[in-house]
């Protein structure tokens, strides 16, 4: 997250408080309206326990003089999340882990007489490789007998997209980008295959739930009945947990997830490339790295293994799924695999297009790795080299770029079914187009291949 000033645009819906930046520090104002709930969160020991288990973001209480207005009860400074990501950028297992985290926290909260008052996927972030609840104000005192007010939101933010990914198509996670408060259940119900009606968990929490929403859509509400026991609530949470746990998706059969099985790299060339990238990272010593077109994160790990927070971005959900599973298995703390298309990056969405940041708003970054990427941008997407250079020069200080010439079989494959309308696609053409935006600091042929590795410094970001 990049320091700024003023209110955080995505933090205005909850009257309990809001986030704001002050002199490069992120603070959260806790309003008086939330006092009794905040006090219980702390006094009950729930905060301490969730903290100890690494489930909730930590914070420290600060001087009330920092308050933005008179409604303030406390000012707290939450630990910073290195990179904010959104559910439509997560692979299947990331969304599933975030869902299970939310349910686990809700069950724990009930033990302490509290309950989650929202179950937004945006309240979860990946920090040190694990999901973490970042909204300290999500808890409220649990009035005995009250149903879970966040049940609808949980189904829309987690269960519906997970079911669609597992049972229909993993790319349907992108629906979360269209619907900022989660996938409407009637839409999920109509998109899910008929066989999901024979699974009790999906029949109930999605299909019948959607029907119930439709039935009661225009019914007035009057009474104050609280007819749901704590036991029934626990049973509901258990049922949701089972529903999530029963959803599976295996990353198989995509072109990219098996990329390294089919690549034309010789062992020698791959070794040289690894050494060149590692040397460059040692020399540049970036504070953060984005690896764009990262596939399963082989080269991202050259950065993350050096303790550099690294975003490993790829368009292919299967590759990202493999990447995340490796992160989880090896307990990798500095790597964040995400699904994203650099030719159509995540837009700013929500109110005024500012509630959730675009990918570019979450930059700039010290170093970008663009390895074996430019031919896809230039040839598959008809992007002029000058535009690619302009884009990267605004997004990073240093660029480590691998150029693959036309003679390479990977590029030949792209040109096999179309006219070659790229007369300037060659190393000299690339350098000519990049020079207005970058200073080329290193140019190394990758021995054992026809490829070239460049290290460039942005003239825009370095003020050069």
């Amino acid at each position: 997250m990049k320091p700024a000033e003023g209110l955080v645009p995505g933090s205005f819906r909850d009257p309990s408080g809001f986030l704001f930046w002050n002199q490069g520090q992120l603070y959260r104002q806790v309003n008086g309206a939330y006092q009794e709930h905040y006090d219980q969160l702390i006094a009950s020991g729930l905060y301490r326990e969730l903290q100890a288990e690494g489930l909730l973001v930590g914070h420290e209480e600060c001087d009330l003089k920092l308050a933005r207005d008179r409604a303030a009860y406390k000012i707290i400074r939450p630990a910073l999340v290195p990179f904010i990501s959104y559910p439509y950028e997560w692979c299947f297992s990331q969304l599933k882990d975030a869902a299970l985290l939310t349910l686990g926290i809700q069950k724990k909260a009930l033990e302490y007489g509290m309950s989650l008052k929202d179950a937004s996927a945006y309240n979860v972030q990946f920090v040190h490789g694990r999901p973490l609840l970042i909204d300290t104000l999500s808890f409220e005192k649990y009035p005995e007998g009250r149903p879970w007010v966040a049940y609808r939101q949980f189904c829309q933010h987690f269960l519906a997209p997970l079911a669609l990914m597992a049972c229909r198509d993993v790319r349907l996670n992108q629906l979360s980008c269209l619907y900022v408060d989660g996938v409407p259940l009637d839409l999920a119900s109509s998109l899910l295959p008929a066989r999901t009606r024979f699974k009790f968990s999906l029949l109930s929490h999605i299909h019948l739930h959607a029907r119930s929403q439709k039935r009661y859509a225009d019914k007035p509400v009057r009474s104050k009945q609280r007819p749901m026991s704590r036991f029934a609530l626990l049973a509901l949470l258990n049922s949701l947990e089972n529903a999530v746990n029963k959803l599976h998706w295996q990353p198989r059969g995509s072109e990219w997830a098996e990329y390294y099985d089919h690549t034309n790299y010789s062992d020698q060339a791959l070794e040289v490339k690894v050494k060149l990238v590692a040397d460059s990272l040692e020399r540049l010593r970036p504070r953060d790295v984005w690896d764009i077109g990262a596939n399963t994160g082989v080269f991202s790990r050259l950065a993350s293994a050096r303790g550099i927070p690294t975003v490993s971005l790829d368009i292919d959900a299967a590759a990202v799924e493999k990447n995340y599973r490796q992160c989880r298995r090896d307990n990798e703390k500095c790597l964040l695999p995400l699904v994203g298309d650099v030719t159509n990056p995540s837009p700013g969405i929500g109110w005024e297009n500012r509630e959730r940041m675009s990918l570019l708003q979450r930059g700039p970054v010290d170093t970008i790795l663009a390895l074996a990427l430019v031919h896809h941008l230039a040839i598959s997407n008809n992007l002029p080299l000058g535009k690619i250079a302009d884009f990267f020069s605004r997004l990073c200080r240093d660029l480590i770029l691998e150029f693959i010439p036309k003679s390479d079989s990977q590029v030949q494959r792209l040109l096999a079914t179309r006219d070659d309308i790229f007369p300037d696609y060659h190393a000299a053409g690339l350098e000519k187009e990049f020079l207005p935006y970058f200073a080329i600091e290193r140019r190394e042929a990758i021995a054992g291949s026809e490829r070239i590795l460049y290290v460039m410094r942005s003239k825009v970001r370095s003020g050069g």
Partner: protein
Amino acid sequence: MNFFKSVIRMSMLAAACCLLFPLRAYAYIDPGTGSYIFQIIIAAFVALSFAVKVYWLKIKKFLGRLFAKKEK
């Protein structure tokens, strides 16, 4: 066994309640009337199987005793 009777009774009561009374949830996010009512109904159903799961050991013991008595 009293416990199970009470669970069934409570579940039926809960289901009846939600059919009889419209509800209001005091929450800053809209829980949605349909979602609110539906979760009470579905919770009543899943409470039964949840009770079996939670009290499985007790059930096993109870059944064990029941059959032991019959054998006598």
